């Protein structure tokens, strides 16, 4: 395995990890900015320690992003009766006294009293649309493209 360069070899003057991690995320009209800082004693470099250092800031960044954004983005990875081969992206936002979850890839939405109910409604609609599209081919080209897209990522059972 290729040795990970130590600070002495790279000429770095830092003996402790201290790196401000700043990122701007722009997507689907949602904007947030988070600044996270991690500090601690530098561990011996290994796969596990690198993962331990890198993963928590990413998790923290995602949590900060979700909390700060009004239309939080989430991923749908499961459906009730079908399997998803790739996740779908949904945004969830307040809508009157409930929440609306909108799918980014296809013009579908789900409404519910809570975020999870809205997401469940959206999941049901994805499955319902899939079933509709698989029933026949009497659709406009736009819907035939949606059919091809869903056929690629949804598996029955």
């Amino acid at each position, binding site marked *: 395995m290729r040795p990970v360069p130590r600070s002495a070899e790279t000429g770095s003057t830092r003996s402790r990890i201290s790196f401000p991690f700043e990122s701007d995320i722009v997507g689907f009209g949602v904007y947030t900015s988070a600044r996270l800082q991690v500090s601690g004693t530098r561990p011996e470099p290994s796969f596990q320690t690198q993962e331990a250092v890198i993963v928590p800031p990413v998790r923290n960044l995602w949590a900060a992003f979700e909390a700060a954004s009004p239309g939080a983005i989430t991923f749908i990875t499961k459906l009730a009766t079908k399997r998803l081969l790739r996740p779908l992206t949904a945004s969830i*936002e307040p*809508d*009157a*006294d*409930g929440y*609306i979850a*909108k799918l980014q890839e296809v*013009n*579908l*939405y*789900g*409404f519910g009293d809570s975020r999870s109910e809205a997401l469940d*409604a959206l999941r*049901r*609609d994805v499955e*319902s*649309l899939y079933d*509709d599209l698989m029933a026949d081919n*009497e*659709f*406009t*080209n*736009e*819907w035939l493209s949606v059919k091809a897209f869903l056929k690629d990522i949804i598996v029955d059972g």
Partner: protein
Amino acid sequence: MDNAKYDTRDVKQCCGNKLGIEFRGGKEYNGWYCLDGKKAARITIPKGRKPVPPGTYKSMASQLKLAVGEFDNLLSCLMTRSAYEAKLRDRTNRVD
């Protein structure tokens, strides 16, 4: 936006009576609008919301390929089925 005037049953009734959309039951209502024998627009209507929440209202309009003002007109009887069909044909042809 006239969402406050309607509940979801009104929207379903209008889509059924005016546009001839047949809804399938379930936890939400789903129905297709057919143009020239092909399914061209699909609308989802949640059950029992009075009045229709604004985001939901916009989403229903968008599923019928209408702007919110046009959807207001559809529900308030200002827009006829043939006027809707002309708009949908134009917008479907643009996509197709």
